[in-house]
């Protein structure tokens, strides 16, 4: 009886371990497919090198590029502890300004989206994942990594590491410096000014 019990436990454990691996692998495949489709969409929209883009094309590109970014999570990470100390209205405005600026910056150099992307690792662990890619354009390679989270059944990007530098951390350092030197309101003034330029 004891033996049967032990075997059952072992089978259950193996089954659990196996199912965990299968889930992680399936999430990895799902993420990779999603990112590859996004990449194809961007390249298709961009057309051949030297193409001039209309405003609607640019805004469509902006949508595809930034569509899977969770700006709220990234903005929260960028603002750090200050995010918890500000009011709900300030948070909403901050996230709004932050996303406007990041979205605008994403179109600064459109050619980078022509890069050939190689997926080096897609590691999913429960509701989070890390994707490591290498983008190659004109004999220049740039590592581009994504930190992702599954929110309401959808995988979203919460941070991007471009050329070994985290986007959220870079903003965090900049914002903290401004807050420490001049206060949160001064940061908001700078963000508003920068966002105006984007619109």
């Amino acid at each position, binding site marked *: 009886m004891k033996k049967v019990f032990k075997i059952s436990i072992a089978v259950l454990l193996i089954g659990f371990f196996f199912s965990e691996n299968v889930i992680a692998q399936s999430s990895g495949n799902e993420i990779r497919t999603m990112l590859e489709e996004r990449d194809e969409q961007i390249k298709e929209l961009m057309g051949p090198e030297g193409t001039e883009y209309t405003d609607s094309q640019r805004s469509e590109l902006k949508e595809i590029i930034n569509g899977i970014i969770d700006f709220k999570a990234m903005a929260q990470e960028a603002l750090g502890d200050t995010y918890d100390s500000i009011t709900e209205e300030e948070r909403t405005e901050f996230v709004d300004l932050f996303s406007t600026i990041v979205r605008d910056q994403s179109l600064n150099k459109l050619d980078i989206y022509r890069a050939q992307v190689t997926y080096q690792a897609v590691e999913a662990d429960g509701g989070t994942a890390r994707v490591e890619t290498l983008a190659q354009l004109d004999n220049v*390679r740039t590592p581009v990594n994504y930190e992702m989270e599954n929110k309401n059944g959808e995988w979203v990007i919460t941070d991007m590491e471009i050329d*070994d530098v985290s986007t959220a951390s*870079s903003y965090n350092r*900049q914002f903290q410096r401004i807050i420490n030197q001049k206060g949160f309101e001064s940061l908001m003034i*700078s*963000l508003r000014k920068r966002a105006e330029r984007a619109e």
Partner: protein
Amino acid sequence: MAFVRETWNYILRNDENEIYEPEVQFLDPIASNIETREFYQNAAFGNRPELRALEIGKEATETYISSMKKQQLPGLYLAGYINFANTPNRPRQSNPFIQNTTNLFSGGFGLTIRQNLNFFSMKTSLERSEIELNKVTYAKDAAQDGILLEVNNNYRTASLANIKVEQTDNALVTSKRWLRQEQLDYDFGMGDAKDLIDAMRKELELKLQLKQRIFEYNSSLAKLNKSAGIPLTTLITN
């Protein structure tokens, strides 16, 4: 880059419209890690051809000495013979006065001892061979010491080069962060153009330095493997 391509074309002696493109465009550190010092020392003792040649030379001299010692021993030769002939239909077989090739039984043996009496010459030859053996043994010891020194030096150089690659890589990541910071500051209208240029210059310098360090590391690892008698193809395939 154009200079490198020109040099490359010159070395390959290609035709006018024939262009060779390198298969690998990027310089990356060799993927295999540096093993322990003992690993390379043991590999060198097992793989280096000069050590194997000296070992075989030593074995040959030992065999020669052994054969020379055997030549000093006396040689003993024992030989014998038996003759027997019988003619059954002849009368009076036992007649003692009749003995010819048709009726006989005889035998005999001989013992010979052979000894080279040139003792002094043999001793000198043996001594000369023993000196040869000592010479080979010392040569092997010296070669082992030399190889050990070479492996240790190459190991130290490779380890140092590896650390330099890591340090330069870390410095480059820091400079990239600095540059990103300056770019953000500049984009927000808070940064100084001079700081941005300084950050860009530093990043480019470190990128170049990293390539140089990677080249040094790869070369030093290749030298280390060569000194350990490990084929270079092992590095490439890894």
